[in-house]
């Protein structure tokens, strides 16, 4: 009995505790540097955001906010904020280019895909393990950073230089940041798998990510059904529009007919008044997205991105099961 034990420990495993086994060990060992970097970025980024949050709080307190109006945008345009926003916006692209694109392409280019898949594990299992670790890393990183940034932004949103509907806030808070990280990384992995070359797939992934950012920016306003608000032509803008994203604006007659906003923008006031009378215009009509729609829009957007990730993942797994690496 004891002889068997001795034999096992001598011929068997390396000494020391083994937290991970099998493919998990291999994937973590192979991507140790990348995973540690993501971890460090997440931790340091969170600390940085917490520090900036505290600093902004102090500055605002010193300025007497929120009782006193601020001399905009003195507070909001601190370098700390713009740096944070830039870094967070770049995070999904960086993860896609430096973690996603080389994930499979690196193994294909260096032949280590051949090494691993000729051991006793199927390439399907190997790939699934790699994908899970990579997805977990980017989702955790994106979620933690997004949570910290949301926590910073929410109470101070009125002093932030960007409104909620724009990329710097919308894409970096709530579920959108982790979903963008996940989708772009999955795209990078797929591009890498198809191109089989690290450098080429990193370049293509970068271009693809840039295109996605543009398309995503255009898509944002369509993530929730817009609302219409009608108020008198000479009335003040209702308070509920203060934090809204105005999509379009018309002038309308009493019977509900809408005219272009510039219809009666004439050179003289008399001419404008005559125009207004002629068309019977009595109302301002605004098409807008309300701030209360933001969570719904973010979750819808994140849902679309996760669905696209699922499609890419299925394609990747199907492709690998059909044709060898």
């Amino acid at each position, binding site marked *: 009995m004891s002889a068997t034990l001795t034999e096992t420990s*001598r*011929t*068997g*495993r*390396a000494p020391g505790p083994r937290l991970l*086994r*099998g*493919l998990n*060990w*291999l994937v973590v*060992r*192979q991507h140790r540097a990348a995973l540690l970097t993501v971890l460090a970025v997440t931790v340091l980024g969170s600390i940085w955001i917490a520090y900036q949050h505290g600093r902004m709080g102090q500055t605002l307190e010193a300025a007497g906010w929120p009782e006193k109006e601020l001399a905009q945008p003195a507070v909001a345009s601190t370098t700390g904020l713009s740096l944070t926003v830039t870094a967070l916006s770049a995070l999904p692209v960086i993860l896609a280019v430096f973690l996603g694109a080389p994930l499979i392409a690196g193994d294909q280019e*260096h*032949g*280590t895909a*051949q*090494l*691993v*898949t*000729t*051991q*006793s*594990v*199927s390439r399907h299992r190997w790939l699934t393990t790699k994908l899970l670790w990579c997805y977990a890393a980017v989702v955790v990183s994106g979620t933690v950073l997004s949570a910290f940034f949301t926590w910073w932004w929410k109470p101070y949103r009125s002093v932030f230089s960007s409104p909620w509907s724009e990329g710097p806030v919308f894409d970096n808070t709530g579920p959108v940041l982790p979903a963008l990280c996940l989708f772009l990384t999955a795209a990078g992995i797929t591009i890498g798998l198809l191109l089989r070359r690290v450098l080429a797939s990193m370049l293509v992934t970068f271009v693809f990510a840039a295109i996605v950012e543009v398309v995503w920016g255009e898509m944002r306003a369509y993530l929730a059904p817009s609302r219409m608000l009608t108020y008198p032509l000479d009335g003040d803008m209702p308070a509920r529009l203060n934090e809204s994203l105005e999509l379009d604006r018309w002038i309308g007659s009493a019977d509900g007919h809408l005219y272009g906003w510039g219809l009666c923008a004439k050179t003289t006031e008399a001419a404008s008044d005559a125009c207004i009378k002629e068309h019977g215009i009595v109302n301002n009509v605004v098409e807008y997205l309300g701030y209360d729609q933001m969570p719904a829009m973010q979750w819808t957007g994140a849902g679309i991105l996760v669905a696209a990730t699922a499609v890419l993942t299925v394609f990747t797994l199907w492709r690998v099961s*059909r*044709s*060898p*690496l």
Partner: protein
Amino acid sequence: MADAFTPGGASGAWALEARGLGKRYRRGWALRDCSFRLPAGRICGLVGPNGAGKSTLLGLATRQVQPTEGELQIFGVPVDDPAAMPRFAFLGQDKPLFKRFTVAETLRLGSELNPGWDMAAAERIVRSGQVPMHARVGTLSGGQRTRVAFALAFGKRPDLLLLDEPMSDLDPLARHDMSTLLMSEAVERGTTVVMSSHMLSELEDMCDYLLVLADGRIRMAGDADALVPAHSLVTGLAGDGDPTDLLAPHTVVEARVQGRQFHALVRPNGPLSGDWVVAEPSLEEVLLAHLRSSDAPPLFTPGARIEAEGIHTS
């Protein structure tokens, strides 16, 4: 040559069994109509010019290439069955390893990914080459890296070891070391080895079984000891006629006329009668003749051929 195996018995007696195996790439067929058997326990040389289909055949056996047609079995298990995976080990031409792993980590990779891993054997192979366990693979010399790759392959305890030009990038000393290591490990375990090589002398020393490929088809398959004596080197007066006609009842693999003389490599079908000088060729001469003349009929020794009804012909 039916002494070393039991044909018709358990299918496990055949280390490799191909039936109508073929692979077509966009450029054309890399391998076609490939049917053969390799008995277990042999050291098999895979010979052929560049582009003959050697790497494709090894790729098919290791599931890195999907066959276009036909099937391939390893010890009776189809190669696309996961159960076949622990039974073979593969060493590719460029012997890929993780460059940032240490040697110890590389061996741990083997132990983590293979159920029947033999760490003692793998460590012995590494230690016998004085390869430091904590050196990174990227810092090792070519010979040391090959040794680590061999350790990874043998640690898997494969029944079948597939090697794609394993020695091609080694200096003569390392080549000798690796050959010795390969032979001793294979003999000790009874491992079946298939190795492709351009080095005919290397094959002559190590292999007792041959698989000769040219233009994606099998030219010869069988025992090295039986393949060579099946041929004769004939030298005679050419006269006016084609030497092939003179040698009519025999299978002429290759015939060349030099001046008034002809030299031919034939497979005699019966006694060679005539005013000729008959000599036994060397293995190298037989191989070269077959590689040069791809229209000669293929030759299989009895064990290597698959019965006609089993062959998928197209």
